[in-house]
């Protein structure tokens, strides 16, 4: 009879009683659970935007695709290349061969205004002029409805993301951009990547329509292998006829998404942090109430010989259980509400809209649960210390 059970068993026993009393405090416990669920849903929801945006920007970044722009240009918008330059680039070592020649596409890139379907407000949509080899450079691109545009004609094909987001982009319809009408002849996908936010047409048609003369902004090239990149880059950067920068496509898109990704992540964390502070006070209030309403019970347990440590841990565990419950509800809610939700936002680095799907993955769900548990720990800590410090003799007489 004299050997006490170990500390852990006391924790289990006292925590068991604590959890059983939650039903007596349904109101305040539910408020805490719902509060934390809201915080976690917002955190996971906002971060899923950043995650989805980055995924859209980087998913199609094939390791053996390179982009060449004028040296000093941070984006295609700021770049400019002459036809002669694009030919030198296409003939550089390391470029894969396609049926019609090198797998390199000289492209130009303009921004057009189209209203968003959701709000009706104008948004910048990228219209890309490409050469026939573009389809051989970006092999992930598939025309899923209609057909490819015909060279020399005012025809466009639209990315699936753009088709969902922007009004007027319907297969078979015609849109008027500037002085020209453009027939929509096809819809394409690109594994959910950035290209799906774009509209494509023949570069040779787009150049005169936008008075670009015989200039381009970039060359996309498919290399024979990812390892061929260094030789390709060296050849171009040491060629005295060229003044260009060479990037892997994946690196370029990752860099292009940094600003928006950081902005959304930063804002999301800030909002969730502030909301978390509110939820923390909710949890503190609940647990102080729990300790207060159980003052006599806690004192009785301690009078019987239960130690203060297990009481502290039991209060914290109860708080964590409520927080985890809230975290689970918030995570599941965020998953159901946001995962796969399609939206478009401006990418400040390209001044154009990027269509993407929110992505609530396992990592985000774990992040949400960890955040909830953290709120639970802090929310339970101070009430737990109060519970442990209650003078037993005084607390026993509490009503």
């Amino acid at each position, binding site marked *: *009879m*004299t*050997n*006490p*059970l170990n500390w852990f*068993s*006391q924790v289990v*026993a006292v925590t068991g*009683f604590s959890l*059983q*009393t939650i039903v*007596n405090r349904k109101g305040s416990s539910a408020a805490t659970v719902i509060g934390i669920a809201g915080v976690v849903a917002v955190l996971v929801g906002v971060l899923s935007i950043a995650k989805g945006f980055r995924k859209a920007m980087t998913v199609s970044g094939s390791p053996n695709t390179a982009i060449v722009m004028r040296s000093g240009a941070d984006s295609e918008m700021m770049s400019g290349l002459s036809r002669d330059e694009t030919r030198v680039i296409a003939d550089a070592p390391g470029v894969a061969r396609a049926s019609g020649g090198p797998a390199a596409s000289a492209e130009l890139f303009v921004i057009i205004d189209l209203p968003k379907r959701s709000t009706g407000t104008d948004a910048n949509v990228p219209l890309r002029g490409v050469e026939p080899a573009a389809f051989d450079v970006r092999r992930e691109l598939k025309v899923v409805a209609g057909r490819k545009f015909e060279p020399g004609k005012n025809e466009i094909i639209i990315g699936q993301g753009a088709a969902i987001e922007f009004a007027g982009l319907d297969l078979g319809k015609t849109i008027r951009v500037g002085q020209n009408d453009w027939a929509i002849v096809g819809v394409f996908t690109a594994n959910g990547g950035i290209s799906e936010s774009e509209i494509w047409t023949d570069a040779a048609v787009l150049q005169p329509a936008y008075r670009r003369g015989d200039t381009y902004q970039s060359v996309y090239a498919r290399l024979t292998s990812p390892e061929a990149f260094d030789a390709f880059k060296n050849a171009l950067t040491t060629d005295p006829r060229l003044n260009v920068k060479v990037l892997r496509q994946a690196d370029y898109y990752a860099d292009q998404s940094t600003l928006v990704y950081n902005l959304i992540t930063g804002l999301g964390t800030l909002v969730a942090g502030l909301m978390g502070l509110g939820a923390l006070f909710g949890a503190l209030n609940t647990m102080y109430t729990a300790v207060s309403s159980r003052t*006599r*019970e806690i004192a*009785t*347990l*301690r*009078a*019987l*010989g*239960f*130690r*203060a440590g297990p009481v502290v841990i039991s209060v914290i565990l109860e708080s964590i259980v409520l927080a985890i419950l809230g975290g689970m509800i918030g995570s599941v809610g965020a998953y159901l509400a946001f995962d796969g939700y399609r939206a478009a936002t401006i990418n400040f680095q390209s001044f154009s809209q990027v269509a993407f799907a929110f992505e609530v993955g396992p990592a985000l769900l774990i992040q949400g649960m960890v955040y909830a548990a953290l709120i639970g720990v802090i929310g339970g800590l101070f009430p737990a210390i109060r519970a442990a410090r209650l*003078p*037993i*003799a005084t607390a*026993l*007489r509490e*009503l």
Partner: protein
Amino acid sequence: MSENSEILVHVKDVEKVFRRGSEEIHVLAGLDLEVPIGEFLALMGPSGSGKTTLLNLIGGLDRPTRGSVVIQGERIDQLSDRRLAGWRARHVGLVFQLYNLLPVLTAERNVDLPLLLTNLSKADRRKHVETALSVVGLSHRAKHFPRQLSGGEQQRVGIARAIVTDPTLLLCDEPTGDLDRKAGDEILDLLQALNREHGKTIVMVTHDPHASARATRTVHLTKGQLSSEAIA
């Protein structure tokens, strides 16, 4: 008083001072008390006389400001909080005026609580609980929750919880204070039986002369000091 070897509780020159802001309240002032093994002692006195404070000191629920509390040769006022908790679990059974049962647990699980601090097997714990409930005559109410029991029954569960570890000392704080006369008498019968038939040493705080009449000795406290005593 009995020989020193038979003394279970030895309270010596105990002083207890509570602070309320800058005010000092002297609840016990140089009090001495000895309780022999097997005694049923009633502590009486008006409100604020210090009788519950004295009981708490004997039970290791509080510490004296000065003086010593020795139980069965062990000076408990000098034990650490952790060791004192263990000491309470092994040596003291507590009976409270408001029963202090956990409302979410059945009668048998309430009685089982102190046994969770022992290394008894589940089967042994069950036997102890059954025995304790049968001693207080509540075997048939084992599965009931406190809210399903009368006040007298709840107090009997409280007593079963106090005796389930077979402690040396039973400390009762106004055990009949919240009960009607009939239920109170039943509780006093039970305490008397535990004292006479099971040899439990009992210290009971009460303000009710009817209750103190069941004790083998009654001491009165006035302003933190023993003022008189009567032996039954």
